[in-house]
């Protein structure tokens, strides 16, 4: 691989151990993927900072980089941690706060912007064609497909390494020739018959090449976010070319196959029937956008107070200041708000019999991590189930 004089100095250790180790990771991964050079990145988003998911060895790795003077060389944001940072939630378990604090101190020491969210594009929307090094599969696919940013699904340590050096390897989705939509995917009609996350779960499991999605019209960007996050969970997708949305010049189309998604096959992806009294309604995977928060607020006003089970909404930490009035009203109506975290990367204080969620990604992970039954439903159905008479 060709390295510039500066990059070679980094690799040799002229800038210290942390940068040398970071450069070694990038070069070795890049060489394995056949990259010929490195590329400068404009924004790094680091996933894998929750103690609940990375455990003691992940903590050790991050702490060592920070203790050995690793510093962000480029604007860097971070994913959710495993605790509720505003202390508002009674559902999320904060017992790992001590360990999480060690991680957070290391991240702060490395001068990362501690946004603790899986929607980093809320803080800095990427420009089309801009090179990024993002972890967090749902953010990666959103950056590539919606904004036309250029990023691979960087494993957490690679994103960390990219932050310290300011570079990542130029391979995969950093090259236009690899951003080719090959399978035309037609959406089912009617589109919203089955909860939308099921479409993403189906695509993730059944289509391996980059899909060219047509017919995604008249739905909100949040619903598109849900589809993309779900397909990145059940499959390894990092880009879906979406007709009318993905910026021109950031992809090519060379169709080899055409697939039509049918509503009857999607039924298998919404989860089984449930039983039991302890029910949790969950919205906010990926973190709720301001529009989603408003939608929940509007529905709560319509239905009044919570009458059965519990309801959890997860949001970025900053929303508690930006949308204070809405959050206070949701709290007053019995909704549990957790900030800077989500149940995928944290633990619950209690056991639930089943969870109702609008997110295909949450269904995929919560079933596996918390061993709980999960069913997909639309936002209004969830609110109706918990708030309705």
């Amino acid at each position, binding site marked *: 691989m060709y390295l510039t004089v500066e990059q070679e100095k980094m690799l040799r250790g002229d800038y210290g151990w942390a940068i040398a180790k970071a450069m070694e*990771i990038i070069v*070795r*991964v890049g060489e*394995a*993927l056949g990259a010929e050079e490195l590329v400068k990145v404009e924004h790094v988003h680091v*996933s*894998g900072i929750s103690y609940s*998911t*990375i*455990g003691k*060895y*992940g903590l050790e*790795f991050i702490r060592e980089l920070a203790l050995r003077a690793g510093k962000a060389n480029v604007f860097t944001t971070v994913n959710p941690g495993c605790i509720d940072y505003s202390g508002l939630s009674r559902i999320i378990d904060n017992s790992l706060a001590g360990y999480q604090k060690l991680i957070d101190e290391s991240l702060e020491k490395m001068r990362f912007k501690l946004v603790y969210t899986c929607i980093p594009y809320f803080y800095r929307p990427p420009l089309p064609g801009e090179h990024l090094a993002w*972890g*967090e*599969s749902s953010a*990666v696919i959103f950056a590539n497909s919606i904004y036309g940013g250029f990023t*691979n*699904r*960087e*494993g*957490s*340590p*690679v*994103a960390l390494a990219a932050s310290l050096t300011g570079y990542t390897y130029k*391979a*995969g989705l950093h090259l236009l020739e690899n951003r080719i939509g090959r399978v035309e995917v037609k959406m089912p009609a009617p589109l919203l018959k089955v909860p939308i996350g099921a479409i993403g779960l189906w695509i*993730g499991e059944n289509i391996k090449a980059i899909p060219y999605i047509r017919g995604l019209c008249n739905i909100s960007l949040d619903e598109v976010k849900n589809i993309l996050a779900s397909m*990145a*969970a*059940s*499959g*390894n997708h990092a880009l879906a070319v979406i007709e009318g949305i993905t910026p021109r010049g950031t992809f090519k189309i060379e169709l080899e196959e055409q697939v039509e998604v049918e509503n009857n096959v999607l039924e298998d992806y919404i989860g089984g029937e449930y039983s039991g009294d302890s029910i949790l309604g969950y919205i906010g995977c990926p973190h709720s956008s301001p529009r989603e928060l408003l939608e929940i607020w509007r529905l709560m006003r319509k239905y009044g107070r919570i009458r059965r089970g519990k309801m959890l909404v997860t949001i970025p930490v900053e929303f508690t200041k930006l949308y204070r009035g809405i959050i206070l009203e949701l709290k007053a109506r019995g909704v549990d708000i957790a900030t800077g975290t989500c149940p995928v990367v944290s633990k619950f204080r209690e056991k639930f019999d089943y969870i109702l969620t609008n997110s295909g990604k949450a269904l*995929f*992970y919560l079933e*596996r*991590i918390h061993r709980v039954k999960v069913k997909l439903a639309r936002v209004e159905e969830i609110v109706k189930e918990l708030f309705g008479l």
Partner: protein
Amino acid sequence: MSKSSLAYKGSVKPIIPGPCSGEVVLVDGHISFFGEIDPEQGCLINLENVCFRDKILIFKGTRGSTVAPYVIYALRRNNIAPRCMLVAEVEPMLIAGCVLAEIPLFIVEKYEELVELVKKIHSKVYLEVCGNVLLLYKKE
């Protein structure tokens, strides 16, 4: 001592070269290391009898969370990592995990053919990688 007979000879592309020989564990599908693998036990969460400590893990590829490299690293630190991994397709996440954990990683050229044979032999399947060559043995 048990006898072994050569059942298949194929080729691999080394992604992270290193020693790779031992008993085979096959998971014919995509794995999300986060959520589908228990980093304390070295087993698949949904298939509890499938554990891969000190064995050769063959699977199609990875899916899911970008936390995967830390899970692979934890497997190594807990001494329950597979000896090496053979896959049909690689992605950056898997490579990063194997770099961090120093686990040899190979792409199998004719993955489907190999998997069919491993399924047919079913048990006591051993495998060895020498350079680009893959040798599959059946122990009697």
